[in-house]
C-alpha cells in the first residue's frame, strides 16, 4: 500500500489591522504573529501605512514579522481570486473595523475571527451579525485583557 506523501503547504493567517490609534493593536498583532509562527502557521499582515509602519519599525530585523502588505491590495487580491488565506483575524475598535470584517466574511474563504477591543467594544460586538468567532475585551492601553481572551480561544491550535 502506497503512503500519501503529499506535502501540504503551510497554513496561513491574515491579520487585518485597523486604525492604530488604540495602542493594544500593535502589541497584540506581534503576539499573534509569534504564536502563529511557533504553530507553523504563516502570518501575513495587512494594514494601512501607519499601522504597518508601527510594526515594521518595531521589528527592524524581522524576528517576528514576515509579509506585510497594504490592506487595499489584500482585498483586491482576494477579490481577483489571486490569493486567499486559511484564517483571517480582523482588529476592530471602530465602525470601519466592522466594515472590513464584514467584507472579509463576504469575499474570503478564511475562517474568520474578530478581535474587538477599545472603549466601545460591547456596542461593537452587538453590531457583528455575520458568522465569525468573536474575541473581545475592554482593552485600550493594556493588552493583557485581550491577550487573555485570545489565549482562551487559542486560534493557533484550532
Amino acid at each position, binding site marked *: 500500500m502506497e503512503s500519501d506523501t503529499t506535502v501540504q503547504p503551510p497554513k496561513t493567517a491574515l491579520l487585518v489591522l485597523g486604525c492604530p490609534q488604540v495602542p493594544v493593536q500593535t502589541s497584540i498583532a506581534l503576539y499573534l504573529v509569534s504564536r502563529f509562527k511557533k504553530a507553523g502557521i504563516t502570518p501575513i499582515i495587512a494594514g494601512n501605512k501607519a499601522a504597518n509602519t508601527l510594526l515594521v519599525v518595531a521589528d527592524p530585523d524581522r524576528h517576528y514579522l514576515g509579509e506585510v502588505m497594504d490592506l487595499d491590495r489584500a482585498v483586491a487580491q482576494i477579490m481577483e481570486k489571486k490569493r486567499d488565506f486559511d484564517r483571517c483575524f480582523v482588529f476592530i475598535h471602530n465602525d470601519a473595523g466592522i*466594515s*472590513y470584517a464584514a467584507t472579509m466574511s463576504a469575499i474570503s474563504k478564511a475562517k474568520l475571527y474578530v478581535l474587538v477591543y477599545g472603549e466601545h467594544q460591547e456596542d461593537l460586538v452587538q453590531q457583528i451579525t455575520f458568522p465569525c468567532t468573536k474575541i473581545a475585551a475592554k482593552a485600550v492601553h493594556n493588552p493583557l485583557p485581550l491577550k487573555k481572551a485570545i489565549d482562551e480561544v487559542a486560534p493557533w491550535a484550532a
Partner: protein
Amino acid sequence: MGCVEALNYEILIRDASFKECREYIRGHFSESIDVEPGFKIFDVHTIGVPPIAVGLDGDFVIFPYTKPCHGTFLLRVQDAEEAARLRALKKGLK
C-alpha cells in the same frame, strides 16, 4: 488596484458609519442599487456590511468609501459610463 484619489469626487458626508451611509442613500436618492462587499465601483473595491447601497442620480454615482482611521465617506462622482453600467446591472438583477 485603483485609487480613489484619481477620481474627481465630492464628499457628501464624512466619518460616518456604514449604516448612516446606507440610510442616506436610500433617503436622498430615488434610484439605488445594492451591492455586495468587494464589488468594484470605478476601480475601487467597496468595503462594508452588506447590503451596500449605491446611489444613482443622473450621471452621478454615489458610493461609500471606507478608510480604517476615518470611517466611511460618502462620495459623489460624475461618470455617465459608470452610472450606465450600474443601471444595466440593476436591470439584470430584476
